[in-house]
């Protein structure tokens, strides 16, 4: 009876057994593929041609780094991430302030405006590709014609811009949702004190609201970056990276190498680059979150 209880007050073992499944699974999920990616990236390895094999040294990297496609893809990745971030963060902040105000039907309007975030990426991409941006039957084409402009063939002439628009449409609601939540935690007293001090709406936004949102904005930027660096489905469904490489980002390039060319070595080298890029962002995100974490 009494022995049964021994060790109950000792947390160490219990903690170990309770966390072991989660920790070991994630450890496997992270380390095994990571190790293999690193290993493959130094190998000659093509699934279509078993004759090619052996240690490649840094050949995969040299080949990749000297391939203009990589630099195009990198450039596209940065453009995509940069533009979407700018649009969603600035737009999200302004909209958060707007949707924080009292107005008629606020609850429903809020639901409508955050809806795109919950739409699966393949569906959003197809809505835009077919119904919005179609050069003949799209709503945008009709609108352009209505106002006397030439309809644009979005995916042929402005492929990257089109992707930016679609992705921004998906992520603007995310930024809005987070920032709106953050703005609601702003102390009313603070705003009223500022108003008593003679601050107008713009001064309040600039000196009270924006500083209050600083951390939320940085979290939004970092989380979006993690996802935007590896945008895939939207490109896959709409432009397939084209025309040429005009809308190929790093993720899509790796996909082409991996599952279209079956060049495991090359794709893995690209993967390593993607991991390095993501980790630079991750360090900052983890730091921000860590600051907020008291255990």
């Amino acid at each position, binding site marked *: 009876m009494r022995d049964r209880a021994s060790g109950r007050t000792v*947390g160490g073992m219990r*903690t170990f057994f*309770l*966390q072991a499944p*989660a920790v070991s*699974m*994630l450890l496997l999920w*992270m380390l095994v*593929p*990571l190790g293999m*990616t690193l290993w493959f990236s130094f190998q000659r390895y093509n699934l279509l041609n078993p004759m090619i094999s052996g240690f490649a040294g840094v050949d995969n990297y040299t080949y990749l780094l000297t391939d203009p496609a990589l630099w195009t893809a990198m450039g596209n990745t940065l453009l995509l991430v940069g533009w979407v971030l700018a649009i969603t963060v600035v737009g999200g902040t302004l909209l958060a302030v*707007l*949707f924080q105000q009292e*107005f*008629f039907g606020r609850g429903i*309007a809020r639901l409508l*405006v*955050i*809806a*795109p975030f*919950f*739409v*699966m*990426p*393949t*569906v959003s991409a*197809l*809505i835009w*590709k*077919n119904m919005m941006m179609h050069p*003949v039957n799209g*709503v945008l084409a*009709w609108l352009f014609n*209505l106002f006397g402009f030439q309809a644009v063939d979005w995916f042929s002439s402005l492929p990257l811009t089109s992707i930016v628009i679609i992705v921004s*449409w998906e992520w*603007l609601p995310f930024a809005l*949702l*987070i920032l709106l*939540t953050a703005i609601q*935690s702003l102390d009313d007293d603070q705003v009223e004190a500022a108003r008593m001090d003679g601050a107008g709406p713009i001064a309040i936004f600039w000196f009270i609201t924006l500083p209050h949102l600083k*951390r*939320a904005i940085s*979290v*939004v930027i970092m*989380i979006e970056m*993690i996802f935007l660096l*590896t945008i895939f*489905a939207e490109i896959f*469904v*709409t432009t397939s990276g084209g025309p040429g490489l005009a809308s190929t980002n790093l993720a899509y390039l790796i996909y082409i190498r991996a599952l279209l060319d079956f060049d495991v070595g090359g*794709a*893995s080298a690209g*993967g390593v680059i*993607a*991991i390095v890029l993501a980790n630079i962002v991750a360090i900052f995100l*983890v730091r921000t*979150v860590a600051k*907020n*974490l008291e*255990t």
Partner: protein
Amino acid sequence: MNQTLSKKLILTLLAWFIALVVFFPIFWMILTGFKTEGEAVATPPSLFFDPTLVGYHEVMARADYVKFAINSVIVSVGSTLLALLVAVPAAYSMAFLPTPRTRGTLLWMLSTKMLPPVGVLMPIYLIFRDLGLLDSLTGLTIVYMLMNLPIVVWMLYTFFKDVPKDILEAGRMDGAGTLQEVLYLLVPLTLPGIASTGLLSVILSWNEAFWSLNLTTSDAAPLTAFIASFSSPEGLFWAKLSAASTMAIAPILILGWMTQKQMVRGLTFGAVK
């Protein structure tokens, strides 16, 4: 008085205009789902038409649509239940039996989420090929579970942290063992939190489109892959596509609306509440 009213009216107009513009593509898709194929591609686009369920009938009639939908349900619900099963004990011990390593473990879990899927596409693809998990529901379920596990642990952790430690200690004084503590006290007390964590995990799995496109072909393909198949020549059937898409996003949209508050907490790892 009048001034505040007119200010409110202007705000209302502005906000609703933006809300409608942002929502328009979804609205248009839903509308198109009720059109005939002819009306769907009509120029100028027709706003007024005789709504028809032909698109829905045709999609439902295709046996494979139902299969894709079932796949989506199995994979997203299955991966969520598995993730919860593994995460509840972990989050419990992190919240109530913290050690000096807890903080590090939590942050490490977060960092696994930062690993870009493309970075490990090749190894996962090859491992799955060798284990015969390519295009299998089991394989996709495992991937989704692991993909969501860090978020699930984090969300549960933040919800569990809100439970006063005293209550569990009172339970221990009353003779509850770890399992009883979790089943009789912790789970009933945090049920809303656990539910919204589960919903977020379902939503993320349901909408996932990298692994589903790359690891499945037909047998285990979920709705994301099904919809993507419309990008090929079949994409000409806009009404059918819209009907299928509407059905694919409707449940998630509703779940998302219901849990938006708690989702913020999960998506930002507790940094924004």
